[in-house]
């Protein structure tokens, strides 16, 4: 960790890197401000904005490839400058942010294109594209910022966009509630991230990446641990990791392209980005890494278990997202070379999960927005392109050779086994088990949707394939699902080496099992899981929810995480709020009013002393006179004063 991180100033083409953020933002602003006037062509502007951002991003990427120092900084203006606290409105284009830019704009463009078709019947399509563009801008700011405040800026920005898009159909109470839930749980994580930034400033006097990373070695171990845990909290909130995972499945209330782009491919991976970006901090503390790995392992298993019990096609995919991001956390938590592996998995996942979500969207499109997989079946005949592309995604996610999941997930499993001592067994076995479970529930999903007997509801007579504008993105993403894995796993780790701080590697421990054995094991488990699912579900399943055992019931209830949240936060919160309202009205306000009433009451009572009888007045005067005389005499005799 002794090498220092250095950034160079952007020159030439790269000095226009701000356009990446500005173009989608401008497009969003135009769409929002013009209102209905832009209804006719607004969606095309949205697609164009993201598409041009992709082209730009690609050219930046290429020009970065030719550079010596691959960390290019561009300071736009002083954002906050107060005393020692100096924050740039600055961008950083380096290999790490580069691949994210490509993912976001690339997959983003395809999903935008898809959405043109998907949202064609929605009267709010223009607004949808405005929010979508806004999201892309915020996400790009998140990955392009050159300091933690910028990151936070984008971080909250994507939270906002996510909220807007989840509750896009805001007249549905469930959508509005889901959006609010997402925002709130994200805010919990955001608060952690914010406090982490405070710690950086309090201890290092800066929030710029370069200074933080170079200064982190000087910090006490305890400080680094706390700092890291707070960043992890932020990451967990955004990425739907334990214990802040509950919002992500609910987020499926939003339109499907949203689920694909935001809640599968990009935003939810921001946590992985944060940890990867902050790896000088995480690498500096071993306990911290163990915590990250634990969170990842726990979440990946949780996601699998719950995913296996769900019957809503989008929820299954959502929990699978939770689970897959668990893998990524596992990867970044392992540190060293596994950082790069996590990023590879992230990119691969971006492709195949977006592919599957869009496929799910296509299915829903043809099935009158039905989402229950118990009421699908036999669709392979009716929507061939969707079926085929979805199959590519399915094979990729379960890690079947030679699909991309195999190349991205298997190395993480291997890396987990490379930890020292018993933790290698613990995390390694968790990762392996996860691979098997993934195969099981994804196969269940695939079979129940596209094969087996038809279990459709009565109103559906002839499901249709989606229009070309939706299938073309599907096909392109499917190609990515097939091919990207191998390409990425060979190129990205080397590419990322150049990222400041990310290249630093510890010597990995010897794996407790040999590489070959592990590969074989994981493939075996995958096949076993898939096979089991095939056996169980090839003949379909019951159309209604059936009574089930403890495990399945728990999984259906999201392992009671919502129940726990409700019991610990929501109910006491509501009670506290009511109690405080009562306290404020009766207690504090009551005290003041009571004081006033006491004065009034005293006044009312004292008034009665003014009896109107002149003799009683004389009495009070004489009494007063006696008291005054007595007081004077007392003073004279030295009793007073």
């Amino acid at each position, binding site marked *: 960790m002794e090498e*220092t991180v250095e950034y160079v100033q952007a020159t030439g083409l790269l000095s226009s890197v701000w356009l990446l953020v500005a173009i989608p933002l401008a497009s969003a602003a135009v769409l929002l401000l013009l*209102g209905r006037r832009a209804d006719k062509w607004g969606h095309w502007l949205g697609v164009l904005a993201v598409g041009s951002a992709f082209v730009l991003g690609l050219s930046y990427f290429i020009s970065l490839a030719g550079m010596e120092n691959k960390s290019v900084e561009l300071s736009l203006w002083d*954002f*906050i*400058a*107060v*005393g*020692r*606290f*100096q924050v740039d*409105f600055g961008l950083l284009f380096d290999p790490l942010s580069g691949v994210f830019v490509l993912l976001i704009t690339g997959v983003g463009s395809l999903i935008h294109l898809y959405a043109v078709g998907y949202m064609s019947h929605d009267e709010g399509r223009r607004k949808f594209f405005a929010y979508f563009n806004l999201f892309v801008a915020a996400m790009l700011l998140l990955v392009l910022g050159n300091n933690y*405040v910028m990151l*936070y*800026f984008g*971080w*909250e*920005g994507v939270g*906002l966009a996510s909220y807007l898009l989840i*509750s896009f159909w*805001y*007249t*549905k*109470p469930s959508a*509005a*509630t889901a*959006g*609010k839930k997402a*925002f*709130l749980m994200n*805010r*919990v994580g*955001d*608060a952690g991230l*914010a*406090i982490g930034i*405070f*710690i950086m*400033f*309090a*201890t*290092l*006097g*800066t929030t*710029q990446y*370069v*200074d933080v990373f*170079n*200064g982190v070695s*000087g*910090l006490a171990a305890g*400080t680094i641990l706390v700092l890291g845990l707070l960043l992890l909290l932020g990451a967990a909130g955004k990425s739907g990791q334990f214990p802040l995972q509950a919002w992500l499945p609910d987020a499926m209330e939003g339109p499907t392209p949203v689920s694909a782009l935001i809640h599968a491919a990009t935003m939810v991976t921001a946590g992985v980005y944060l940890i990867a970006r902050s790896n000088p901090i995480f690498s500096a503390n071993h306990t911290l890494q163990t915590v990250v790995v634990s969170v990842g392992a726990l979440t990946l298993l949780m996601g699998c278990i719950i995913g296996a019990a769900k019957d809503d096609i989008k929820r299954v995919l959502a929990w699978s997202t939770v689970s897959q991001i668990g893998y990524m956390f596992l990867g970044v938590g392992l540190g060293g070379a596994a950082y790069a592996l996590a990023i590879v998995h992230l990119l691969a996942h971006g492709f195949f999960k977006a592919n599957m979500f869009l496929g799910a969207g296509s299915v829903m499109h043809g099935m009158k927005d039905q989402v229950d997989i118990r009421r699908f079946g036999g669709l392979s005949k009716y929507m061939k392109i969707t079926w085929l592309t979805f199959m590519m995604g399915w094979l990729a996610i379960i890690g079947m050779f030679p699909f991309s999941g195999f190349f991205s997930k298997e190395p993480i499993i291997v890396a987990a086994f490379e930890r020292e001592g018993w933790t290698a067994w613990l995390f390694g076995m968790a990762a392996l088990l996860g691979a098997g479970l993934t195969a099981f529930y994804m196969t269940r999903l695939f079979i129940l949707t596209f094969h087996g007997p038809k279990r459709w509801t009565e109103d559906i007579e002839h499901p249709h394939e989606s229009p070309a504008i939706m299938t073309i993105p599907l096909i392109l993403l499917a190609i990515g699902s097939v091919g990207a894995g191998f390409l990425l796993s060979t190129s990205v780790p080397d590419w990322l080496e150049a990222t400041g701080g990310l290249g630093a590697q510890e010597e990995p421990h010897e794996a407790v099992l040999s590489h070959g054995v592990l590969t074989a094991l994981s493939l075996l488990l995958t096949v076993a899981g898939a096979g089991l699912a095939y056996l169980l579900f090839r003949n379909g399943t019951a159309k209604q929810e059936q009574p089930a055992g403890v495990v399945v019931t728990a999984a259906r209830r999201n392992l009671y995480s919502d129940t726990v949240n409700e019991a610990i936060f929501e109910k006491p*919160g509501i009670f506290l*709020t*009511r109690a*405080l*309202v009562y306290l*404020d009205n009766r207690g*504090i*306000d009551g005290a*003041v009013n009571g004081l006033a009433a006491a004065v009034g009451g005293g006044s009312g009572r004292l008034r009665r002393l003014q009896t109107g009888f002149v003799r009683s007045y004389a009495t009070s005067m004489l009494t007063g006179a006696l008291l005054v005389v007595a007081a004077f005499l007392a003073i004279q005799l030295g009793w007073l004063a």
Partner: protein
Amino acid sequence: MAGVNNFPFLSILTLGPLVGAAVVACIPKAKGNLAKIVALAVSLVMLVLSVFMWVAFQVGGDAQRFQFRESYPWIPGLGVNFTFAADGIALVMLMLIAVLVPLVILASWHDAEQSRRSVPVYFALLLSLEACMFGVFAAADVFLFYVFFEVMLVPMYFIIGSYGTAKRQYAAVKFFLYSLVGGLFMLAAVIGLWVVGGKTFDWVALTQIDIQTGTERWLFLGFFIAFAIKAPFFPFHTWLPDAGGAAPAGAAALLVGVLDKVGTFGILRYCLPLFPEASQWFAPWAIALALIGIIYAALLAVGQNDLKRLVSYTSIAHFGFIGIGIFAFTTQAGTGAVLYMLNHGLATGLLFLVVGMFVARRGSALVSDFGGAGKLVPVLAGVLFFAGLASLALPGTAPFVSEFLVLIGVFTVNKTVAVIATLGIILAAAYVLWMVQRTTQGTLNPALADIEPMRKDITLREKVVVAPLIALLIVLGFYPKPVTDVINPAVEATMQQDMGKQDPAPTGGGVTEASR
């Protein structure tokens, strides 16, 4: 100094609206529209003047702390002068007033008609309120400050009392008495300070004197209680929801946006520099009150069913942030607090105005009377949502910068306080989103659709009202530097010269700017 710097901006700003108020008050009742136009024109002139003043204000190395200083003798026997001067802190607040008042006048265009009272008087009251607000921030003489501080109550009292909603009598009296109680405590302290300080009210002279510790603490308390009631801090806050709930929306925006800032401004301008030792002694208590306010008021805001009361409670929570920012005694927190005062004025002002537009349409401020309103008035709902976002300090809106500065500044000196306060930002999201959901989202309340005005989305006049605020909030959210550059020297002078406090150095001993 340059010629423009001698231009009597501050006295014109104070007198102008007063003259305007007199003129407007003389307009016969029947010619309500003329009154509105004259009032708007006067406030616009003040806005233009303020912009010139902003431009003329010198920033940079050798710029003076107080500029535009004017001084005329008033009551020589008591050592009272009409002394006006503005530092960066005051300048920002003056600018806020100048921006808000025309918008409030425009937003209140039809408010007065509904109350069957005289329309010209309403606008005359608004203008005289503007004059008092300018005066209170421009004063550099303790007596003068006190005079404006108290006189300000009168127009506001009548605005709430005569033009407010159902519980206006109770609210107006409560507002007046609370403020008066605080004012009288302050009066005692002002007199005490005057005697201790050798019969002068000059702010600069008074900062130089040495006061006995015990006396200093009592005097501090006198000032502080007044400001804590005004701001308001927990537990002196209960007047605000009543006043904010009963006042017409425009006036409520001024009340919460500007009037209450006198409290926090007073603490910064008077408590800290005049009683530095006592300020430090009392700081833990003040911070505790502010901190309780952040959490407590946020929770209460969640539990409110009246939109205007809800917004009032959010304000109390925000004042808690300003409070901890001030009493942290660091440059970041202090600058953040002042910036917060500005941003909160813009954001909550906007929120109140938008809520007012909803209330005017629905004829009720109860959250439960709305529901799904976004279907009927999508743009207005969007503006409400934006105002809510600004209120919860989302990055990209101005309050983010100030809240972040406050928290980061507080964190460097007191981690626990900052962490607890950070919980407040989660609660902020809760109350804003809960409000937005219950009013504009979900299924449409059938009763709502039957109300004719609810079907009319934002009008041109309303657009003109909200657009400048939205623009300012966004611009300052991305580029707050012009403002922080103005505030920063004044805050630094307060913290470092007057208080003798230095910002704590980074504890990590790591790399500093040198390596950049």
